[in-house]
């Protein structure tokens, strides 16, 4: 069992736990933070599924030139997935924030337990 996996697993597990805890708070802003933390955790999780190794120049999934032998690189597919996930994550976080703001305007409270 490689130690990298254990460290990654620990970080992903920890972030998921913290994110879940935040999502269960009564303060709506903290709920949004929870969603943001969960997003980060999910991204790191995806990257770890591609197999993380100590970074070197050769591992970057940008090939040296057209043609020639193809080196072994880090998994490009998970990177493509995460790249879009990051941009969409911004969209959802912003949307959640605006929803928070509007919810506050309508209900005059940040406490999700007190909504009508």
């Amino acid at each position, binding site marked *: 069992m490689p130690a990298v996996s254990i460290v990654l697993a620990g970080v992903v597990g920890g972030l998921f736990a913290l994110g879940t805890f*935040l999502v269960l708070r009564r303060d709506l802003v903290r709920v949004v933070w929870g969603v943001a933390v969960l997003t980060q955790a999910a991204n790191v999780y995806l990257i770890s599924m591609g*197999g993380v190794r100590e970074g070197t120049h050769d591992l970057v999934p940008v090939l040296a030139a057209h043609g020639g032998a193809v080196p072994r690189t880090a998994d490009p597919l998970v990177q493509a997935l995460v790249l879009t996930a990051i941009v969409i994550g911004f969209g959802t976080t912003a949307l959640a924030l605006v929803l928070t703001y509007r919810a506050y305007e309508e209900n005059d409270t940040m406490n999700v337990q007190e909504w009508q």
Partner: protein
Amino acid sequence: MSPQLSVVVAAVGLPFLAAGATPLAARRLGDDTGYAGAAVALTCFALVATQLGRAGTASAAWIPSLDAAVRVTVDGWSLLFALLASGVGVVVFAYSARYMHGEDGLARYYGTLLAFMGSILGVAFAADLVLLFVFWELTSVCSFVLIGHETEDAAAGYSARMAMLVTVGGGLALLVGVLLLSTASRGAFGTATFDLAAMLADGGAMRAALRESGLFVPALALFAVAAGAKSAQVPLHFWLPNAMVAPTPVSAFLHSATMVKVGVYFVGRIRPLFLSPEWTLLFVTVGLATMTVGAVLAVASTDIKQLLAYSTASHLGLMVAGFGFGSALGAEAGVFHLLNHALFKAALFLVAGVVAHQAGTRYIHDLGGLWRGMPFTAGIAAVTGLSMAGVPPFNGFYSKEFLFEAAYGAAAAGGGLAWLLPATAVLASVFTVLYSLRFLSVFFGGRPADLGRIERPHVTLVVFPGVLAVLAGVIGIAPGLAVEAIVGRAVDATVLAPVEVHAGLPDHVTPPVVMSAVAILAGVGAYPFVGRIEDAVETATRTATPVRPNWWYDRLLDGTEATGERLGPVVHNGLLRTYATWVVAVAAGFALLGYLATGAVPLPGTGAGPWVAVDWPGVPPAMALVLAVAAAAGVAVTAASSHVAGVLTLSILGFMIAIFYILASAPDLALTQLLVETLVLLVFLLVLEELPEFYADLEVGRTVRDAALSVAVGGVAFLTVLLAAPQPAAEQTRIARYYVEQAVPAAGGTNVVNVILVDFRGFDTLGELLAVSVAAISVLVLITMRNRGETG
């Protein structure tokens, strides 16, 4: 000659196109839309008629990976059904033009009716099981709209929903059956297919494969449920009488050539594949039971439309029973009766519509002696009513005679209990004669004193049922014509080996002829006692409610609604944390259960597992440090006392993750993450300016509960990474390898990540862009349109 795919597709597609144009046409044409619809139906009829004499299948690719395709099959059986649907369609549309005069929702009515006809044509020609299922369910949806045409009427809503639930439920049985067939086809052909035509062509191999996999009886039972629900077989017959709340032209269409015949048509279609002792037992039993129950209930009906509706169920039972018999005579009964019943029943429903239109009532006891007021209508009723009774020389007689011959043959061969079959058939026929006479009494019986003056109906209301009656009459006089034209070829498609069909008046006395004579004489003899029979049946159904499937249906529906009402507030209590708790707890619980069940995670104490033999010095120190800071930032976010502090620590987390991406050889991600993190910080700060700080008392109990759940979720995530992450020394996955190797030759780019985004997985990227756009639009709408809501 092989069929022309383009013509068949045009015939099926034209009604749908016309349905799309109906709203416009209805606005311009008004009542005359009915004639436009009749023109469409006539065009379809002509297109289908061009295929007469052709046989075979044609196909165009649709979903090659599933071997589902736009396959059509053209043979006598599909042509007969398609010609009936479009032909009766012409009559129904033309009749509607006058009948629906001044009604609301004409666009919806005609549009749905067109789509309905198109779906029926689709069912008729589909040789692909997926395609068949799609059209099958389309007919259910269209009939729902048509039956519930009177949207203000609660009874119409109830009946429409009932028809929908029963027939769509049957459709689901069809879907499962289709999947079973497809599974079995792997055994027969080597690859799974949805090609029904191929299965029928190689019936022996399919039967062997079905038997071998033990799917023969399940598939047969599922198809029986599907066909029984559509064709109103006992005990799923109860939706059909309720469906009479539909406008009369719709009833005429539903009951004669379309909806209810779909099940019978399908039974005939798969008959060569499934014909076996099980098949005979199932369909003969169900069919004869339906024939008897329908006929008895029809006698007890006091509404002429209800009488006709129960009669339809009874006649459908006749067809199903016919197809059930193993002999070719049974198939002849089913096929020929499909045609005969469509002709006389459509005409009878239209006649019932005329009666209701002119007399203002459909109540049998208030009607009588109408022949004086409407002699032509009475003539039509006489021809078609006697045909319904099975009296020679009207067309219904011949097909019923086929059934008697098949039943007699089966009994003579089987002996013993098999003699019940012809006896039941005769009993049902006695009741059939009885209710036919009952219906005719509306025209030829004694005229009640309080019946007012009956206006002569408008010519357009009479001429179209008249056309059907003439056709029925012609077949009655010269059945050979119909056999020659299409019935013979249709029978060939539903039997194992081609047969010669002989239909004609009997020239010597045989047992089946005696059976017919007994049925007619007994029916006529019992007619004087019809009132007492009606009372007896009515009392029986009222006292023994649990016998009625309708009662069970109501119980089931009410029970479901009540459960839903109780369950709703519990599950949906409006508190965010309830939802979040359930979602994460269930997701984590199931994941954990899965790991335990598959043995991926050994139970503690067994001394094995992924965590033994850790190679600690292998961690790159930079990565460990960055991740440690990220985790610490996560803790700080959770513990942050103010909003601003939390947002800043959240940013630290984000930037650490960005550095992690660099270390994990993902420069594109790192760049994006850095920039997005900056923007997130900006947006957070902008919004937080507007929001107050939040202070609340710490609730120890709740915090402990949340912490426990969070730790559990984190633990499962931890396990998941351990179990699923590949070993660093492991080979690249096949997909990753493919993308890296193909990036330059196939897409001409060296940045593999970008190549995946814009080229290999471009469709995914398009979807993600839509997500970004939707988020932007939602933000815009939330802020700028806040005052346009319902509260103002």
